[in-house]
């Protein structure tokens, strides 16, 4: 619910923010108390709020608090990112913070679907490539990263790796139809026809 209309997304280019760790759940991305609202406005202020507050000093600054990553638009993560709750507040917060694409080893299914529905592409790379990217970005935060949906590739300078996404989701980004409501409303008679042949709708 960011843009009123779906736009074509073929490529995202910008600086990156590495966030290491497997199984980062949506309670961490957006703690539940920030779901007490009737809109998504202002969620960017609470992304990883508790995680940032409790970040061990030995690990330096939390990447979302590290000035060298300010303005980053590509989030680089590891395995099963976004697991847990179906709260769209998690990808909404990331999008509103400025993230325009996620690159990682894998994503939870509901997080991926929520991100797709708001025009935030999540592409998969190999486990090794995700770690390698994080290491490169940590060493040189000013590096520009390019997420090329059309070519199925992620580039960091001369470095390139294959990136993938399920076909239908990829098609939705390339065709600019990730906001699915329009497609789903296209032929209401077809929907009625399915409802009419379901016995639990017609009363057995």
């Amino acid at each position: 619910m960011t843009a009123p209309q779906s736009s074509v997304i073929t490529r995202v280019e910008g600086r990156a923010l590495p966030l290491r760790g497997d199984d980062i759940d949506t309670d961490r991305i957006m703690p539940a108390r920030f779901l007490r609202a009737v809109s998504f406005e202002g969620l960017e202020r609470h992304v990883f709020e508790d995680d940032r507050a409790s970040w061990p000093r030995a690990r330096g600054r939390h990447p979302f608090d590290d000035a060298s990553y300010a303005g980053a638009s590509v989030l680089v993560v590891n395995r099963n990112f976004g697991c847990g709750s179906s709260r769209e507040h998690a990808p909404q917060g990331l999008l509103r913070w400025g993230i325009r694409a996620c690159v990682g080893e894998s994503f939870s299914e509901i997080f991926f679907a929520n991100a797709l529905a708001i025009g935030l592409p999540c592409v998969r790379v190999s486990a090794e490539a995700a770690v390698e990217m994080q290491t490169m970005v940590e060493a040189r935060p000013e590096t520009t990263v390019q997420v090329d949906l059309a070519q199925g590739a992620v580039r960091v300078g001369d470095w390139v790796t294959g990136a993938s996404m399920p076909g239908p989701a990829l098609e939705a980004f390339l065709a600019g139809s990730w906001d699915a409501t329009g497609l789903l409303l296209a032929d209401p008679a077809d929907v009625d026809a399915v409802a009419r042949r379901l016995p639990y709708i017609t009363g057995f």
Partner: protein
Amino acid sequence: MGRTLLQKVWDAHRVRRLTTGQTQLFIGLHLVHEVTSPPAFSALDARGWAVRFPHRTFATVDHIAPTRDTSRPFADTLAEAMMAALERNCRRFGIPLWDLSDERQGIVHVIGPELGLTQPGMTIACGDSHTSTHGAFGAIAFGIGTSQIRDVLASQCLAIDPLKVRRIEVMGTLQPGVYAKDVILAIIERLGVKGGVGFAYEYAGDCIARLSMDERMTICNMSIEGGARVGYVNPDETTFAYLQDRPFAPAGTAFDRAKTWWAGMASDPDACYDDRVQLDASSLEPIVTWGINPGQSVGVSGRLPDPRQLAEADRSAVVEALEFMCFEPGQPIAGTPIDVAFIGSCTNGRMSDLREAARIVRGHRVARGVTALVVPGSQAVGRAAEREGLHEVFLDAGFEWRGAGCSMCLGINPDKLVGRQISASSSNRNFRGRQGSPTGRTLLMSPAMVAAAAIAGAVIDVRPLVTSRRERQA
């Protein structure tokens, strides 16, 4: 070649193939609650759309529901604004709302089944990841986000990719004191918290066949904790018996016709699966999580892992979890002191859960220093428990007896952990901060294990308590 239940439901509800290649899938039942729906209704307003099938859409309030003082306006002004928004939206779009003043109110995944809304062969959607619960009836139920709620409100459809099916056969008889919760925690421990991504889990085998509907719901509820968005059990006589005489279930001769259709939706014996897994349940012991995801668990007689004995790839996650929990590598899980005991949630807040917990609690006292609360999953569960006098068993033992809601399962209502408290919880997630304190710690276990921990003040094996009760009764 036979078809699985998933394929049959998919075929019956497919509207068309979208230009993107996704399936446009008709949704037979849409359940709505206060937290994830407001921006979806706003989007409908902004675009001038109506709710396409308001008579297939039902709303209740659960996540923010205070379990003590439910008078309006709520003390929490943000919660009050959400409640008011839900009331306004339901009125405006013609959707039935069961609010706190309605005796049908409760956690959305508890009331759907108990009202007979949830039925075999349906597609169901709800803006909550534990929507997988409804799969216990042989429905295909999707947890969705707010944009997809908008899609379903406006079109009664989802744009979605087909799922693969993994059949999980659970064989053998559970020991006394071992429950459905232990079965699903064992499955998640074995297959991993992301093992189910891309799959629907079909739970089968003689152990599952003997489970009650409440127990099947516990198992399907936590499918998502194993990464599977959808989990289901094929409908059988247990399912049909549960549905008979429920308010929204078909009645009279329609019920008989429904039964025939429902039975026909079950997976065929020669159905083809993408994967199969077997689990022997007879050797399971009560399971307790020790870490910060539901896959990090151990049998109650076991010890926490020692990172030094693990492969390098597995080490960092264990170290991180042990640090957060302040646990020592290799320490036994039994004996871990607890501060809070929580019995409730969409996982384990049903009548059979409360009965089992009360059986353990009867005649005992909650340990000094432990805060213990029982939160029925719905007002109907609360009333049924009071009819049996269970609330008195809990109150006599020093438990708090609360009103229906999500309560301490997640930190979005007044029921929260404080500081570093450790909670023995019958809920579904032990993520850091999940129970409302950023540093709070959660040990997931069955309601009977929570009851035992409340009495002992520490994690203990519930099996001797269950066995001694049975002997005394015999």
